[in-house]
Structures are given as structure tokens and as C-alpha cells.
């Protein structure tokens, strides 16, 4: 390694000052780092791309190394991990594959570290290892551990390497990593608050001791820590090699140019594909916990979140996002911080706007207005101890609106193939208890990592192929999951009709059916990492019908063993929700076939108990009466829909060919039926003014309004006075009206 010295001026400048300068330059010039011209790119476009390829490969090498060393199935098979290279001031330059929300969080963590004066105290030295999982300081939720190490060239800090993994347990009040039940931040488990957890490339011994005493599966949590560090060290070593080759000045210049190019790329994509103007989307998420097992008394409640989204695209394609109207923080682990919302936006951008240059740059292509203080998206100004146990939960639902809204903008411009009609919900399954090896086990299955994909502007969504939080959508093999938890799969088939109905239907989800086995007892959490309870899940686009809500099932104290011994029919699928198979097959002390999710089983489950876990389908696009009748018949043949849906929803008249075992549609009869259905729709409809007048009376009288609804509107109007005023104006309500 050479020790080429950096120019003294920049070397002498504290990073904290560089950060402030960068902020000023962006404000003054509109370009990151004031880079109006990308000189390295202009002078040597081939070299610019070559070094970009090298940096990407370095990050992906870190992924390979880190994942193979790491322990969490969710990190490695589920793809909930990422490694990145950053500027000294924290901005992510190049990132590995993985969850594309994380570069924002890692960048924010570094910014916090710099702004907090770590350069002076405790100082930043070669071999240092810093870590954070605390949402108060840039983490999203405490199961995501963010690790970073400085990269020095000679005695100059030239970059940072970082890595993040989602661990199986971080000591939440309940086992596992989806802490939707956490009542406050004190239930959020083991904190690592912007700490130096190691030096000289070695983790401090007290770090491992804390993991050992404060998490339930420490060997796996430590495996992840080693994986993150191994990946970071890989980046550091390879980057130094690259600097040796290309020179430190070139490296420092080109790193900044990649970030600014990322910004330009995002701007240009919006400019080319969308239309300027204002897009708004109302969206609500509920959390029905009243009467269920909870931890604190104030959690015995049904809640409704307001998840409003407003997107303004100006003439220069700069995008502004607003959450004005967001409802109040909640006494569950479902609050998120503004930096994490910003990172969630990076995730959504990487899926819906630009796919090619994932780094910090796009974050400068848009502005996130401060979410209302005290809302679920910015809780700390009002409640500093709000829990972020599974902060993604409301954010992913909000991002679903973003998918749909950008889809509309693209559709209007004619880019119908770029449309995504939303994103499916995320319902997680977690187990805890004594596993099949006689040791304690706690962790998450991978089922939720592969939902149905949303409909596109010209095609159905794919089944079991997409997940809003990771492009690595995959639920893996049942035989692998069975190695981790004391369960035996009885089924894992496509769930018919689980996607939205439309001209192009949503991709279908599936149902996992598990028999508890080889354990003295386990607990099952049907957790909310971004799902709804009673409110219809997601809307779909342009006249499509929404996806039905997720419903869980389980049976405790069953006669399953007897059925097996007598070779009677068992339970392998949910069947028609209106006539669930489980109720027809099993007898049990507790038999729940339609539980409003999420929930935690009140009982410890024993051998031969049955769990039926649903995985969502996604949103549809267009009127289901315009779906190609032959497609409906083909779905029937494949078992993906039911005859009554074909008839009552799609208006398709079908017949079954016993010999060919195929359904076919009668085109003429279908047309007649569809015309009748359209006529019936017209008869049901009322003029908007009439509907508005009737509804206004109900709103003003708060007629039949559940307390959850009233509480939500109260919070929204109080936290966002402008939103409240607009709401009153829309319904022509008195100025002093409140819910």
C-alpha cells in the first residue's frame, strides 16, 4: 500500500465542517457538493464506468462474504442485509444487493456520528468499529444492526464501509424480531447507541457479553455481528487496493461524482416518465388489538392510522413528499422516525423510479417535508419513548401508495409497462420456545418474503414473486425452514383469489399450514410488519377491487393425531374462506378459523396443534368486468379462482370440460351477463352531490364512528392544522369542528 498524502487543505478540514459545506453547496447550487460538472466522468467516461464497476463488485463481494459468515436465515435467505461504501461525510456511494432502504439509514447513522463530534471524542481511528441500532440515532428498528468502520488511506479518512443485518432476536419484550407489540422504547430490547463496539478490527469482549445476556439466541446474533464486520473489512481492504491503483485524488473526486450522478439519474427518470403536478393518495392502516393478548393495558384498543401521501413534481422534476395529516403515534412498536421514512423513500425509489444507480444521490432529488410532530412518522417530539419495534409496518403501507401514485404518473405518460398497482401486505410468522433439538429457539419464518406481485399496466401480477421490503423476494424451501423450527409443513400452496380482482389481477399469495411437532411447546406470533386488520387491504388501481384482509387460523388441543392414526383427511389448505376446511376436519379445544390479524396465540401450542398462516396477494388494475374471459377460465383451470368469483365478480359464464379438465368461457353469455351487471351498477349509483350531502350529515354527526376512527381524525387534524382545515372545507364543516 502506498501512503500518498492528501491535499493538506481538505485533510485538515474537520469532517463536520465538510458536512456543513456540502449542505450549503447543495442549497446554493442545486448540485450535490456543488458539482455542476462531473469532470472525471466527462474526461474519462470509460474509466468512470470501470471504477464504478469495481466499487459495485467490492460491495457485492462484501455481501458474499458477510452473508456466508452471517447466521440469520432472514438476513441471508430473506435478503434483509446490505453492505455499502460511503463518503467521509456519510453519503452512500455504492451498495451491494439487498434491501435498498438501508443505505439511507447507514448514511444517516454516519451523519449523526459526525455531527455528534465523534471525530474529537472518542476520535476515529483505523480499526475502529462503530455500531447503532437505536432509532433515536438513525436506526429504523432495533433488530437492524448498523455497523461501520472507517477507511483510512495513509492517515486520511477517505471513506466508510458499512453493513446491516436483521438479527433473529434483539431482546424485545417478546421473543423474535417483529416487535409490533412493544408498548414503548423500553421494550425495544438491547440498545447499541452509536457505540464504538470494537477496535483494531476486533469486537470488544463486553459487546459479546451484552449480546449473550440480552438476546435470546446470542450465537446467531453474534454470527450476524461477525458477518457484518467481515463484509466491512472486505470493503475496506479492496477499496484501499483500488485507491492504490487509481490514486487518492481520483478516488475522492469520482466518489462524489457517483453520488451526484445518482441524483441526476433519479431526476431524469422522473422527468422522462412522469408528468409534473400533484398526486395525492388517501390510505389507512388499522391495528385491531382490542380483546386480544397485549402487554400493557393501554394496548387493549383498536387503532386506525392515517397514512396520507402527497407528491408534488415540479417543472424541474424535483419531487416533494408530504405526510401532512398523518395520525398520532401509537402505543405499539409501529412508529417510525423521519430519517427512516427518508430511507424508506430510497427503497421505493429504487423499485419504482431508478434501478441502476442506488446510492444516496436520489435522496437529494426529492424533499421530504417534516412529518407532523407527534405523528406515527415523527413521534419523538411528543413521545420520546415511542417504540419502533417494527417501524416498517406503517411505512411499507405508505410506500404502497407511493408505488400506486408513481404508477398513475407513468400511466398518464404512457409508460403502462412501468406501472405497479401497489404492494402486498407483510404478515409475519414468528416462533419461540423449545425447538426440536431441545434448545431455545426464537425467530421468523421466511414466508412473508415472497408475496404476490402487483398487477402491471398490461399484465397480471406474478404469484409469490415480490416483497415490498426486498427485491430478493423468496420464501425458500420448506425443508430448510423445518430445520429451524419445531414444525412440520402440511401445506404451502397458492391461495386462490388472494390477489385483487381486476382487468389484470394481482399476483396471488399462499397459505402455509404447519403442524407443531417435536417440541414441548412453542408460541406463535402472527405479526404485523405492514398489514391491516379490518380495513380492506390496499385499493388497486382504476376500478380494481381491493385485496381481501389477511386472516389467520389455528387450532389448539386438536384431534389431529387421531385423524393421522386413522388415516382420515387432514388439513392442508384454507379452502374457501366462507367455508374453511379446518372447521370441517378438526375438532379442538380452541379452533379459530378467521382471526383478525395480527395476534399472538394466548395458549402455548403443543404437538399436533395446527397453524394456518396467510401470505398476501397484491393489488389489481382495472375493472374486473373487463378481464379477458378466457383468462378467468384459465385461472379456474389452474385452481387460482373459484366459480362464484368468476361469475359474481368477473361476470364470466363458464363451463367445465370433464374430459379435458379445462374450464372455458362462453363469450356471448358473458357479454350479456356483464351488461346486466353494469346496468345493476348504474341502478345502485347516486350522483356525487347526493352522496356527498348524505355523507356530510353522517360525518358531522359522527354517526356510527368507531372510537378508532374518531381518534385518528382527531390526531390528524390536531397535528396538521392545514390538513384539518382542508378536511373541514371539503365537508363544508364549521371552522370549530373537531372529531
Amino acid at each position, binding site marked *: 500500500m502506498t501512503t500518498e498524502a492528501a491535499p493538506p487543505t481538505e485533510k485538515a478540514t474537520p469532517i463536520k465542517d465538510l458536512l456543513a459545506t456540502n449542505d450549503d453547496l447543495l442549497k446554493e447550487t442545486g448540485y450535490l457538493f456543488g458539482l455542476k460538472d462531473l469532470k472525471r*466522468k*466527462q474526461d474519462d*467516461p*470509460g*474509466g*468512470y*464506468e470501470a471504477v464504478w*464497476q*469495481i466499487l459495485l*463488485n*467490492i460491495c*457485492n*463481494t462484501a455481501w*458474499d*462474504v458477510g*452473508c*456466508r*459468515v452471517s447466521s440469520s436465515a432472514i438476513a*441471508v435467505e430473506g435478503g434483509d442485509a446490505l453492505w455499502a461504501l460511503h463518503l467521509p461525510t456519510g453519503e452512500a456511494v455504492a451498495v451491494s444487493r439487498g434491501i*435498498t432502504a438501508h443505505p439511507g439509514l447507514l448514511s444517516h447513522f454516519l451523519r449523526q456520528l459526525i455531527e455528534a463530534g465523534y471525530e474529537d471524542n472518542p476520535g476515529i481511528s483505523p480499526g475502529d468499529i462503530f455500531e447503532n441500532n437505536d432509532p433515536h440515532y438513525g436506526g429504523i428498528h432495533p433488530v437492524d444492526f448498523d455497523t461501520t468502520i472507517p477507511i483510512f488511506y495513509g492517515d486520511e479518512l477517505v471513506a466508510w464501509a458499512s453493513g446491516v443485518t436483521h438479527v433473529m432476536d434483539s431482546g424485545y419484550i417478546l421473543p423474535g424480531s417483529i416487535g409490533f407489540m412493544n408498548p414503548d422504547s423500553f421494550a425495544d430490547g438491547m440498545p447499541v447507541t452509536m457505540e464504538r463496539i470494537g477496535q483494531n478490527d476486533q469486537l470488544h469482549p463486553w459487546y459479546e457479553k451484552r449480546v449473550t445476556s440480552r438476546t435470546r439466541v446470542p450465537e446467531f446474533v453474534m454470527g450476524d455481528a*461477525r*458477518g457484518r464486520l*467481515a463484509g466491512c473489512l472486505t470493503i475496506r481492504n*479492496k477499496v484501499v487496493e483500488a485507491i492504490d491503483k487509481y490514486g487518492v485524488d481520483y478516488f475522492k473526486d469520482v466518489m462524489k461524482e457517483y453520488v451526484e450522478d445518482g441524483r441526476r439519474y433519479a431526476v431524469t427518470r422522473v422527468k*422522462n416518465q412522469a408528468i409534473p403536478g400533484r398526486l395525492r393518495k388517501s390510505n389507512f392502516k388499522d391495528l385491531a388489538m382490542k380483546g386480544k393478548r397485549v402487554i400493557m393495558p393501554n394496548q387493549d384498543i383498536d387503532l386506525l392510522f392515517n397514512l396520507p401521501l402527497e407528491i408534488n413534481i415540479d417543472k424541474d422534476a424535483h419531487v416533494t413528499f408530504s405526510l401532512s395529516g398523518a395520525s398520532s403515534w401509537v402505543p405499539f412498536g409501529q412508529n417510525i422516525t423521519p430519517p427512516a421514512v427518508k430511507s424508506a423513500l430510497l427503497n421505493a425509489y429504487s*423499485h419504482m423510479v431508478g434501478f441502476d444507480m*442506488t446510492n444516496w444521490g436520489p435522496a437529494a432529488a426529492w424533499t421530504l417535508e417534516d412529518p407532523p410532530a407527534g405523528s406515527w412518522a415523527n413521534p419523538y417530539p411528543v413521545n420520546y419513548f415511542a417504540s419502533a419495534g417494527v417501524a416498517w409496518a406503517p411505512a411499507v403501507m405508505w410506500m404502497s401508495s407511493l408505488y400506486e401514485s408513481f404508477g398513475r404518473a407513468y400511466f398518464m405518460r404512457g409508460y403502462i409497462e*412501468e*406501472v*405497479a398497482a401497489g404492494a402486498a401486505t407483510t404478515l409475519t410468522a414468528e416462533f419461540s420456545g423449545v425447538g426440536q433439538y431441545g434448545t431455545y429457539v426464537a425467530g421468523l419464518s421466511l414466508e412473508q418474503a415472497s408475496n404476490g*406481485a*402487483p398487477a402491471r399496466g398490461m399484465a397480471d401480477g406474478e404469484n*409469490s*414473486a*415480490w416483497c415490498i421490503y426486498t*427485491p430478493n*423476494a*423468496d420464501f425458500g*424451501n*420448506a*425443508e*430448510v425452514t*423445518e430445520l429451524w423450527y419445531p414444525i412440520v409443513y*402440511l*401445506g*404451502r*400452496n*397458492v391461495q386462490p383469489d388472494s390477489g385483487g380482482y381486476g382487468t389484470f389481477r394481482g399476483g396471488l399469495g*399462499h397459505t402455509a399450514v404447519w*403442524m407443531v*411437532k*417435536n417440541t414441548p411447546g412453542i408460541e406463535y406470533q402472527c405479526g404485523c410488519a405492514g398489514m391491516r386488520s379490518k380495513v380492506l387491504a390496499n385499493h388497486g388501481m382504476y376500478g380494481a377491487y381491493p385485496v381481501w384482509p389477511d386472516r389467520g387460523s389455528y387450532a389448539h388441543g386438536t384431534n389431529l393425531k387421531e385423524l*393421522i392414526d386413522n*388415516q382420515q383427511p*387432514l388439513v*392442508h*389448505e384454507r379452502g374457501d374462506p366462507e367455508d374453511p376446511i379446518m372447521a370441517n376436519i378438526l375438532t379442538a379445544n380452541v379452533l379459530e378459523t378467521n382471526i383478525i390479524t395480527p395476534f399472538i396465540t394466548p395458549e402455548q401450542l403443543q404437538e399436533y396443534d395446527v397453524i394456518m398462516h396467510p401470505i398476501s396477494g397484491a393489488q389489481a388494475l382495472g375493472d374486473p368486468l373487463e378481464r379477458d374471459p378466457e383468462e378467468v377460465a384459465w385461472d379456474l383451470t*389452474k*385452481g387460482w379462482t373459484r366459480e362464484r368469483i368468476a361469475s359474481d365478480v368477473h361476470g364470466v359464464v363458464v363451463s367445465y370440460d370433464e374430459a379435458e379438465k*379445462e374450464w372455458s368461457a362462453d363469450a356471448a353469455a358473458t357479454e350479456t351477463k356483464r351488461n346486466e351487471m353494469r346496468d345493476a351498477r348504474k341502478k345502485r349509483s347516486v350522483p356525487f352531490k347526493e352522496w356527498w350531502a348524505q355523507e356530510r350529515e353522517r360525518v358531522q354527526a359522527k354517526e356510527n364512528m368507531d372510537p378508532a376512527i374518531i381518534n385518528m381524525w382527531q390526531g390528524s387534524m390536531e397535528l396538521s392544522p392545514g390538513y384539518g382545515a382542508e378536511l373541514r372545507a371539503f365537508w363544508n364543516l364549521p371552522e370549530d369542528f373537531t372529531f
Partner: protein
Amino acid sequence: MSRYLLACDAGGTMTDVIVVDEEGKFVIGKAPTTPQDESIGFLESLDEALEYWDLAQNQKEVCGSAETAIYTGTSMLNTLINLSGLKTGLIVTRGFEDIIIQGRGSQTFIGYEWSEISHMQYRKHREPLVPRRYTRGVTERIDMFGQPVIPMYEDDVRTGVRELLDDGVESLAIVFLYSFTNPMHEARAAEIAREVMKEVGREVPLVLSSEVAPISREVSRTNATVIQAYAAEPSRKQLFNIEEKLVDAGYEHSLKTVLCYGGVTNIRYPRLFETVMSGPVGGIMGGKHLANTIGGLENLVCADMGGTSFDAGCITQGLLPIDREPPFQKMYVNVPMLDIRSIGAGTGTYIRLDPETNRLKLGPDSAGGTPGPVFQEQGNEIPTIGDCDLLLGIINEDYYLGGRVPVNKQKAHDIFKEKIADPLGLDVPTAAEQCVDLVNVMMREHLIRSLMLGYDIRDYTLLGYGGAGPMHLVGYAGEYPWKGIATVPHAAAFSAWGGACMDYGHRRHKSVAGLIPPGADTDTKMYAAQAVSGAWEELENQLIDELVGEGFTKDQISLRQIAYMKYYGHLDDLEVASPVVRLNTEADVDKLVESFVDIFTTTYTLAGKPPVPTYQIGEVSVIAEVATVKPTVNKVDLEGKEPPKAARKGTRPVFYEGTWHEGQLFELDELRAGNEITGLAVVEAPSTTLYVPAGWHARLDEHEIIWLNKGESS
């Protein structure tokens, strides 16, 4: 009449046949592939090859003197692509009837780049080989310990098989969960299926997952089993047809084909699905044979650059790289396959500017050989890497593919200038050189970061081949400290040559449960040892039976034992060649563990090593090989360093590092062993071009291998 070896590689477009005589000399013929009857392409290509030896009129005698004929084709691949296999019925564990249709999410983006993976709108499941209506569920379950926790409902099997036979299925596949730990349910289901077939009076091929791929991961195992049931017999029928035609032509032995993991087998081999993707095998096996023959090349990186892709594999200590769950045709498949990693990079790789960022983008798509680069004037008007090679003066416009293909250099120049150079604000040669440098970096990064992860390249020789290999070899070797950088005069036909270089070999894998916890006592270690040794013995017996059944004697068969090991909790294991044949003692177990730890610490950083480790052995395999007749690698007398006058072809301007240089030109066929060439030079041959940049030297050694090195000549 001499004895011969015939090896045929039928690709999607062309069929290559290599004929090797007993002195190791060889000729290669080419003819269009004839998918309707691949024997036609085989024999036409053979004729063309024999013309080089003026033996075209003696095809019958040559075939009669052939000791071995090896055929590698695309019939099974085409069967899968065209969905033209047997109508297959699938019997699965009840509740998993959608296993083929649903697959895994990650199968929808197999082969995509990350930017494409992020782009959800691109993903798509493949058309299932077995439609849902030809799938039947059977209530049963074996758990992870091999215990039958739900007995098999035999009536389900009876009913399912009968219904499927009534539906006219032509083959049956049976896949039950965890059958690899205990195959009793699958075996019993097979008995019942046979009974039903007898009752119905119709026999169809029956394939069990526990027999063809007894490996964990049900999706991949199901795919493997279904491919065998769906495509093996139609493919075998084609192979029999080729064998028949060869016999008609005088050939007196059975036809052989090539396994995905690099070995030759009789076309009667039961698990024919293991031949499903043998196309890229040739190059690696050629490299292995070269290494075995001349010595000193036990660590070898084999890199093949053609018109479309850059394919590379890494041989370590003579062990072939194996991927046990390779992605293939949008499926993960439990079939051991040579781990050959590819990126879209070749002379046909398109060069574009991103309209949104004005960034230079190479591929990943390609104009391939047809329509090929712009200069070929076959309809492509997007500049390619090959066009850059021409514009830089590396490709000879008058001698492209030996002068057989006309070249329009002006057109390549004009289109490249308009679409690439001018928008970048660069002159044509500078822009062309930047494109070539970029593709070289992409290939180099592929080798260094992906393929060579954890390996020290100072221990490895880089062998470059493929039509474009020698032209870019120095570029993609870069300045990394390879132990050596080499190519061969027949680089363009090296894969075909490698097809003739394989041993007769089979390989079997089996999942096992072996755990060695911290501080394990002798009993615990020996418990794991018994599981491993028992599985090795079982696999060895199966392999010996197979090979003996194919006519070999036991003493001809060499066996190698492999264990797949990891630290407990890790998800990825490493292949460990066992230092002992059996784990008979605690010391044997320790030796195996030591081998694993050595490989782990080389592959990953020390930070990844658990301080209190539990070792896990999840799978074992055995490789059984029988040495066969292969081409010899000749050793010739060395002549002087100075190339003969006949090899010199004058000079040509070549653009390098920003300026034009007068490059020395040579004819490859006229060079002699011992000759050395100093760059900047271009060595031309009808099928390839070797580029020696300034500061580099090329030396032809006594085995006629060309070694490239930077700095002083050797």
C-alpha cells in the same frame, strides 16, 4: 488405420466435431446443427473435419476405428425450452401440489442483474413442466429426523396414479418432503404405482426423487426429478438414433455423452438429467486435462470469451468447481454442475449511452456471432466491442476469420462515431479504447471479485480461450499477480477439444446429519463419523455397481470422498476433499475438520470464524472415475526465440494508451515452439487473434502453450 476419438458438440447454431488420432493430433469440423435429427449435423461435421486429413472418403473406416464417440447436444435443453417432453404426472406430498407452479420467488429473476432484479415489472415464473392438473397430492410426512410423522395414505397414491394414467400421462415423478432422509414413503408409493400400472395395463417411466437427487431442498429436488421424468427419455431416444446412425457408419461401440459436472457416461446412464447442461463443460475439462498432462497447473482459472458471454471456472488442487443447486432455465435444480460463472461480455456486446445520464453502458445483451458487430453488415447497427477491436487496429479487416468474412471498417467507424464517440466528446480511437478497457475491467472484476473470492490468485494460472479470448486476455488478466497467464493456439476450438478430454465418471450426493459440537467427546465425534462414512459407503457401492454394469472392472475405478461442511448456524457450506477414505477414528474426524478450517479461513476473513465452533456436515458425495483415452498434449523441441521470417506479416497502426503505435504482425500458424514476441504485436490466425500490448511478451513453449508476461522477456 489409426485409432480415433470422436467428440461432437452440437450447439444451438453449429455442430462441432473434433477427431483426435492416437498421437493426439486433431482436426475440427463444423456444420449447421440439425435439430430434427442431430445425427445429420454430426456426420456432416465429421466429414468436414476429415477433409483436413483428406479422409472424407474414408468416414466408414474412421468410424470403425473410433474407440469412443462422445456426443454433447442440446436435445434435452430444447425439450425443456420447447415444452416438448413427456406428458408427466407429479405425485407430491399433499399440500405441495403447487410446488412446480409456485416455485420460489427467486426463480423469477434467475440470470438478472441487480438493476433488473429491483425492477419488479420484469419478473416472471417460467411455464411449468407439469401443469397443476397433472399433479396429485398424497397425505404423508417424513420429518427432518427421518421419522414418519404421518403415515402414507396408500389410497391417495392408488387414486392419484390411476387418475394420472387415465389422463394419459407418459411418465410419473414422485417427490415427498424429506425423502432424502428416509425414502420409505417414496419407495412404497413406487410399488403401488407399479401395481396400478399393471392393473391398468400401461407402463410409464417412474422417477423417484430419493433415487435421482437425494438432497435437501424440495423445490430444487422436484425440478431435478421432473426434468428426469419429462425430458430424459425423449433425449435418450435422440441419442439412440445418433448411436444407430454411427453404427451404420461403422462405429462399433456405445455412444457416450457428457455429464454437467464434467465426465463422460454411456447414453444408457439412468440419471440422464445430469447431462442437461453440458455445453460449457468442455473448456474447463480441457483445462483440467492440460493441467494433468503438463503438470504445474493444479490451480487453474479457465476463462472463455466468445461473442456473447464471458464464462469462467476455477479448478483448485485439481478439484473441479461444483455448484450443487445451479440455476437453470429459471429453475433451481439439484444436479451437480460445473460451477461456471458467466457475465454478458464478448465481442458482440453492445455499446450504448444511457439516454438519461450519458453513461457508457456495455451489454449485457449482445449481437453474438449473428448478426455480429456492425462491421459484418448483417443488420446490426449498434456498436459492439468487436467494432472497437477493429477500430483500434487489433482486428485485421482483411483477415477476419481467415478472410472468409468481409469487413466494412468505414461503417463501423461512422456508426461508432455517431452513436458513441461524438456524444461523449471523444475522438473515435480514444472512445473505442475506453470501451475495450471497460469490458476488460468487467471481466477482470468478474474473475477477481466473484470467481476468486477467497482464493489467492498468486497460486493460480489464468488460461484464456474462446474465439475472443487471446485478443482480450492481457486486458482481463490485468495487473494482478497471476502465477501465469496462458492461452493456446487452438483457443477458438478449445471447448470442443476439451470435450474429448474427459474421463468416464459418475458422481453421487447424499444429505447427512453430522454435528460436531465444541469439545465433542469420542462418542459424539464417532456418531457423526458413522453417518458420514456410512453415506460414503452407500454412494460408493451405488457408483461401483453402475460402472461395473457399464462394463468396467472395479480396479479401474478410482473413488474420491467429499464432505460439505460449515459452522453450525451458517447457511453456506464449503466443499472439503476428505483427507481420509473413511472416518474410522477420532483422529480421522479431526483431520477432516482441520481441512475444513483451512478452507474456511482462506475463503473468508478470520472475523467470520465463531470462537466456539460447532461443525456441521450436511451433505457428502463420492466421485467415481475411470480413466479413458484422451488426446495427448505433444511436447516438441524448442527452437529459437526469434520467430521465423514466414511468421512476420509486417506492421499495422494499433491504438494503445491514447496514441497510435506501429504494431508488429505475425501469423500464428508459422510460429514455432520457443519463439518469443514482444509487444506491441498482433498475432493473427484464421480463428482468433492474439493481442500483445506494449510492455508484454508472448512465448510459445514446448507444449505449444502461449505464455504472456509483462516486463522483461523470459
